[in-house]
């Protein structure tokens, strides 16, 4: 054996480091057929996959639509619609990238990346989720009058009407296709919400909420945010064990493995301080970015790159090889200066 550079050129020699360097193999070779191996592996996986597809199929629970939501839980829909109108919903107060609400963006230390990026998907919930869709309904003079009255009112007047309706809609009921609320000084707001509930239950609001003015629409940001602001979908998700504190989105409906590979990402949401932090999302992402970077750069990180040698699992993987050297070598391998 020679520890010198056989070419006699290159940089100065350095010490052999077992976690970076190798002693290249000069020993025996065995027959091997890479094409055959990949082909057989493909067949094995194909059999497994087809068997699982036949036995277990795949989940396909129908989505929640505004129509299904407002039909199944009209009061929840009406209450949510009111928060969209008065600007107190989760979406309305989200901040970037949807709204310019201040002081709500998540921060990592002093830095808020989402604030720095700004509002790039602007949403005005009162206009986009309530008033503009209502304005598309034809031949409704009472609604048209209510819309004109509301949009022409001062901000203080709107706030007064909104506040009054917030109070009565909290105890609303639904009967015979009608939302029933107590009377109060809420001006045209009652007519607006009544019409929106009616519109939603026909399915017309689903289409009206689409962000695209084109016939062919593919952007469902508005209806999904509206639906997510209510409690109906979250309740359904809880029943399906999909809530954040139930390991959330790594699961999927039914008894399926889901995105099991997201276990570590989801784990951080279950433990303090992230599970109770107002900056939990950005903290979890920062942790995962760091861990992913560390995994990719593992060969460069002292101590971590020595773990495989210290753990000694390689002795199991290469057990036949080490046995060929003698059992004592196998047993003596790991501890080395």
């Amino acid at each position, binding site marked *: *054996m020679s*520890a010198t*550079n*056989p*070419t006699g050129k*290159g940089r100065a*020699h350095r*010490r*052999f*480091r*077992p976690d*970076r*360097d*190798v002693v*290249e*193999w*000069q020993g*025996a070779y*065995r*027959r*091997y*057929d890479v094409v055959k*191996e990949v082909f057989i*592996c*493909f067949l094995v*996986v*194909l059999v497994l996959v087809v068997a699982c*597809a036949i036995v277990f199929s*795949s*989940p*396909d629970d129908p*989505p929640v639509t505004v129509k299904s939501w407002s039909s199944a839980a009209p009061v929840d829909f009406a209450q949510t619609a009111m928060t969209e109108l008065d600007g107190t919903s989760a979406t309305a107060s989200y901040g970037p*990238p949807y709204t310019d609400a201040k002081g709500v963006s998540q921060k990592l230390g002093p830095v808020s*990346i*989402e604030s*720095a*990026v*700004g509002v790039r998907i602007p949403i005005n919930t009162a206009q986009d989720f309530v008033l503009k869709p209502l304005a598309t309904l034809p031949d409704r003079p009472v609604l048209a009058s209510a819309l004109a009255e509301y949009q022409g009112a001062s901000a203080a007047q709107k706030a007064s009407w909104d506040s009054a309706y917030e109070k009565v809609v909290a105890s609303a009921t639904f009967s015979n296709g009608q939302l029933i609320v107590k009377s109060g000084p809420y001006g045209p707001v009652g007519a607006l919400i009544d019409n929106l509930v009616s519109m939603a239950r026909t399915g017309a609001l689903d289409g009206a909420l689409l962000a695209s003015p084109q016939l062919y629409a593919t*952007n*469902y940001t508005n209806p999904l*945010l509206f639906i997510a602001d209510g409690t109906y979908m979250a309740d*359904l998700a809880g029943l399906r064990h999909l809530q954040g504190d139930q390991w*959330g*989105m790594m699961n999927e*409906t039914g008894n399926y493995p889901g995105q099991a*590979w997201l276990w570590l990402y989801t784990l951080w949401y279950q433990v303090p301080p992230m599970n109770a932090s107002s900056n939990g999302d950005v903290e979890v992402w920062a942790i995962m970015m760091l861990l*992913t970077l560390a995994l*990719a750069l593992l*060969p460069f990180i002292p101590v971590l790159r020595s773990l495989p*040698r210290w753990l000694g699992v*390689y002795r199991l*993987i*290469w*057990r*036949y090889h080490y*046995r060929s050297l003698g059992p*004592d*070598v196998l047993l*003596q391998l790991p501890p080395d*200066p």
Partner: protein
Amino acid sequence: MSVPLDGIAVTSEKATWTGKLREKALDALPPERLLPDRQPAYVASWAYVFGALTIGAFIIVMASGAVLALEGPAWWHSSNAGLFVNSIHLWGTEFFFMFMVVHLWAKFFMAAWRGKRKATWITGVVAFAVSIATAFTGYLSQQNFDSEWIGTQAKDGINSTGAGAFWNVLNFGQMLMWHIVLLPLVVSLIIGLHVLLVRRRGVVPPFAPTQAQLAKAGLSLGGAAGLEAPTPGAEAPADPSPQVLPGQAEPPQQAPPPQAPVPPEPPLGQVEVAEPTSSQPTLEDSSLPAPGGSGIETATQAQGPEDSLWQLPGDGS
């Protein structure tokens, strides 16, 4: 240089970009290394199969995704055939990740980045990360309850990084295009690069016993076991010549089979991890030869019991 040929000046291949590229490609990956028909004898564990299993699952995922694309994203909701193909796609993805994770762990335990193999490791990790993004966009493109719930939940994390302003998980059209065009292209390229690097650098050799370890085991350099080991602290070349790779130093086919370097079939009960020979590795079981059998070749014709199994080239990266 030009070579006259029937009155036509033919430019030497080295003078063209194509010729230079071909020459470099062949230097880096000669056919026998790109599609090897032999491996070092230490490549003998089921742990080595999971890379090929991952590729097998990846082919199934891509093929089933292509079939789904033929009829469009809504097909599988209303057709039994579509549902079956979607199920193939889903389970292919599940197995793809399962095999990939086992492959990743196995390579970690082997410290497979050693010896100019850092890029192989990094491309593997990147392939894993991009595959997660690809699968995630697949879940967002299902148009069912899972899609809308996962999208509305995931938006907060992605928005918190600032990426949500550009990569809107609630925009079905955007996510679908990423899922069926952009990300599969990236995953395919990275996996392809990873495989080429594996073929270029070869399979990482086992940790070699050092002199101290051999001495402790009562063995000596060049002893009966046919070993040669690095001295702790020995100098290694920082910028070595190209590594001696599996398949690079081709022995003449008529070379006599070696005696000592051939890994013998482990005697049952000798070591605590002993297993029946039938559980031995890889899909080439049937070709795993008996000691000294014709299925094992040596890298150098002169090797024998007194010759070294390893050569010390150093990392150099």
